[in-house]
């Protein structure tokens, strides 16, 4: 029998925010609000809000569909229409959902886009995805923002200038034309001030995993925590309030010496601290999480929670240079980092959060993450002498989540961690 998940106040707050957004979207045609489809990595939430548009994130719809067990049917629908078995399942889930009436995860219809805003940070599939959507929504205006890749591990002035030119000469004029609203830089700056505040809070929240026991799980719960900052609320007071509330709840947990809350209640004993690379599986999210908390494993940092922005290295939106700041934000999302940068960032997490191990969840249909994960893992193992583990699943295609395979692999991995602990303890004695 499925156990009802325990909910914190911040979770309820978040649910209200998301329900509110989907309600606004359902009423967009009545209220006259323009609808902007865009993606999480490199999302220009503050700019979208400056033009009073409502955002739609196709990959969020896909993952929500997966958590509601609807993705399999959507994927099959897309595959019946020439989509390959071997490509991104977010795309197929979204296309399938559209073919079946575009009813969103909350049961309300998602309106057609007025704008397809493509800032394809760190993922080429986004580009292909919008080529497909453009053919389905011929009346939508496509606005393309090319985000340069951090190939040398730096954001150069040339790269920033290239993006700012795109904002000034292409993105903003086209948004003005579609919305009929004149660009108001002061308004954008106000959103950026609030964005920075939310970024400060979320950094502090993810930093709490330094405590023992860690009061949160930075992966399985972390994917909920990044919700508001990633899906259009960054740059709003609502997001700041949410993160303040969340931080205060976590502080209380630290004060009481409590571990993370799981769907089955508090985790009683923290046995292993792990860093995870790669997105989670969404179709069997709770079963996947359960394997970890049943073994007393808590995730103290993850790369996936940085997919919508890397804030723990100190970068923040800066309202004094609004467009430059938007450019840097786009370039600084996790999958826009090169492989050596990813290795450095994950190594820092392992060290600072005192992780016992490093796990890669390799996603079959996400090359942006998956290509390079094996040499990254070996480099981290060599550099830090930390035990590494490797499992495979998929984003939203249930055919590629094999519970017993993953469980077997993880159990072997945890046995290895246990033996290592015993050896270390005996050496210390």
């Amino acid at each position, binding site marked *: 029998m499925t156990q009802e998940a325990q909910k914190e106040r911040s979770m309820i707050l978040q649910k209200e925010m998301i329900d509110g957004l989907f309600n606004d979207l359902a009423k967009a045609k009545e209220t006259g609000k323009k609808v902007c489809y865009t993606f999480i990595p490199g999302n220009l939430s503050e700019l979208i809000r400056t033009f009073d548009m409502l955002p739609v994130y196709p990959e969020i719809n896909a993952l929500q569909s997966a958590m509601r067990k609807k993705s399999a049917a959507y994927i099959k629908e897309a595959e019946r229409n*020439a989509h390959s078995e*071997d490509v991104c399942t977010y795309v197929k889930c979204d296309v399938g959902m559209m073919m079946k009436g575009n009813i969103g995860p909350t049961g309300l219809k998602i309106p057609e886009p007025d704008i397809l805003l493509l800032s394809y940070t760190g993922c080429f599939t986004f580009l292909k995805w919008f080529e497909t959507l453009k053919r389905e929504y011929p009346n939508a205006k496509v606005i*393309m923002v*090319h985000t*340069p*890749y951090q190939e040398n591990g730096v954001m150069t002035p040339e790269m920033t200038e290239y993006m700012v030119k795109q904002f000034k000469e292409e993105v903003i004029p086209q948004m003005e034309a579609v919305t009929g609203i004149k660009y108001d830089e002061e308004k954008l700056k106000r959103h950026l001030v609030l964005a920075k505040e939310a970024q400060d809070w979320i950094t502090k929240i993810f930093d709490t995993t330094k405590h023992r026991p860690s009061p949160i799980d930075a992966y399985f719960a972390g994917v909920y925590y990044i919700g508001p900052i990633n899906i259009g609320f960054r740059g709003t007071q609502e997001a700041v309030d949410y993160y303040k509330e969340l931080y205060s709840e976590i502080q209380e947990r630290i004060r009481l010496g409590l571990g993370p809350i799981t769907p089955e209640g508090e985790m009683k004993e923290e046995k292993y601290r792990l860093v995870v690379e790669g997105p989670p599986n969404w179709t069997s999210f709770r079963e996947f999480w359960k394997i970890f908390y049943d073994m007393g494993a808590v995730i103290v940092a993850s790369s996936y929670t940085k997919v919508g922005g890397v804030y723990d290295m100190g970068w923040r939106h800066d309202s004094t240079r609004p467009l430059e700041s938007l450019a840097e934000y786009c370039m600084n999302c996790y999958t826009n980092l090169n492989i050596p940068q990813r290795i450095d960032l994950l190594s820092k997490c392992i060290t600072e959060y005192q992780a016992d191990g490093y796990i890669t969840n390799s996603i079959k249909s996400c090359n942006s993450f998956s290509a390079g994960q094996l040499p990254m893992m070996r480099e981290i193992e060599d550099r830090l002498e930390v035990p590494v583990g490797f499992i495979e699943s998929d984003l939203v295609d249930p055919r590629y989540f094999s519970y017993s395979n993953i469980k077997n692999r993880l159990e072997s991995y945890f046995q290895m961690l246990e033996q290592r602990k015993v050896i270390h303890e005996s050496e210390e004695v």
Partner: protein
Amino acid sequence: MKTLKEIIDICKFQAFDLNFTRAKEWKLEKDGRVLVGYMPIYFPREIIHAAGGMAVGIFGGGDRKQIIKGDAYYQSYICHIPRSIIELALDKHMAHFDGFIFPSICDVIRNLSGIFKQQKIGKFVKYMDFPQNFLPEIGGVFYQQEMQHVLKYIKEINGIDVTIDALNHAIDLYNKNRKMISYIYNIRQDFPWRLSIEDVYYIVRAGTVMPVEEHNELLEQVCEHIKENIGVPQDKIKVVISGAFCEQPAIGLIKAIEEAGCYVVDDDYMLGSRMILGDIDASSNNPLEAISNSYIKQSQYSSSIYDVNNPKEYRLAKIVESRGATGVIFAAASFCDPSLLDAPIFQNAFNKMGIRYISFQYSENINQYKVIKEQVGAFSDSIKLWEDEPVTAVI
């Protein structure tokens, strides 16, 4: 003048020489020469030539390199080409290369650039971020900066400052190169029996691993040979191959398609060598700008170029029409995101246009083609049977 067979034999050897012998010899002939490897699809080789170097195409190990270490770098659900490229690198096939260019075509090739950096392979590794903004004053300027970065890397090795004359000379050489390749395809459009697609493939691919001057000499001779009415026409349909622009099919598969009853009158196998349509201005005072403009304004469609304002399905349909082809074969490398994600776009459009097609997937190292050959044969037969039926294409 060499016989056609002699030229094809030279090209056949060069095209699949995984030790890149000719490039290595060329480098050793003179001090200061550099070799820069580039991955698919396209790279402006002119700039390397102007800097005293040679750009060398790296198209993977195909079915000629056993993969041992490469499989430890990539999961089974990632395409084959990165594992064979890393295998070539780790086995020192490219030890004489100075630098490596990874054009922005997909997430896999992008991340492969990071692995080369992490493994410290070569004196420089450059991920070449081709602009997806097609305004000369925005995307064009950015592209010129990207080319300048490459030139800076080379200057650090050989101290050469690139001149306008050197760039224009290189542009001129590559204009000739593209023009002659284009001539070969135009001849084949009407007389595909004069030169098989297998031979065309050897000839074009060889040009990616030898000095352009030498390749131009060979091309001139090929063009002379195929002016003559050689070969015997066969009862085959004309098709266009699309989707095989990065990881290359094994030569056996390229052959099998023609053997199964098709003349391949256009393809995207070696798309990079034919990417720029027409000449690049070879008399500009700003040759980098000329190269940049050619990419922005004169590129062939590609799965890696954002196409919303210039839909690729209509561009491919125009190629089919202008080549007089009666069908399209979509051949995608397994797990190739750009190619596979384009498939529904092409296929939905072609269903409406009435353009016949089939599709299959391959891997560079497969050498069993029986099923594909049967599929292509059935496709060819079905078109021959329906050949009187009008194609309701609206292009």
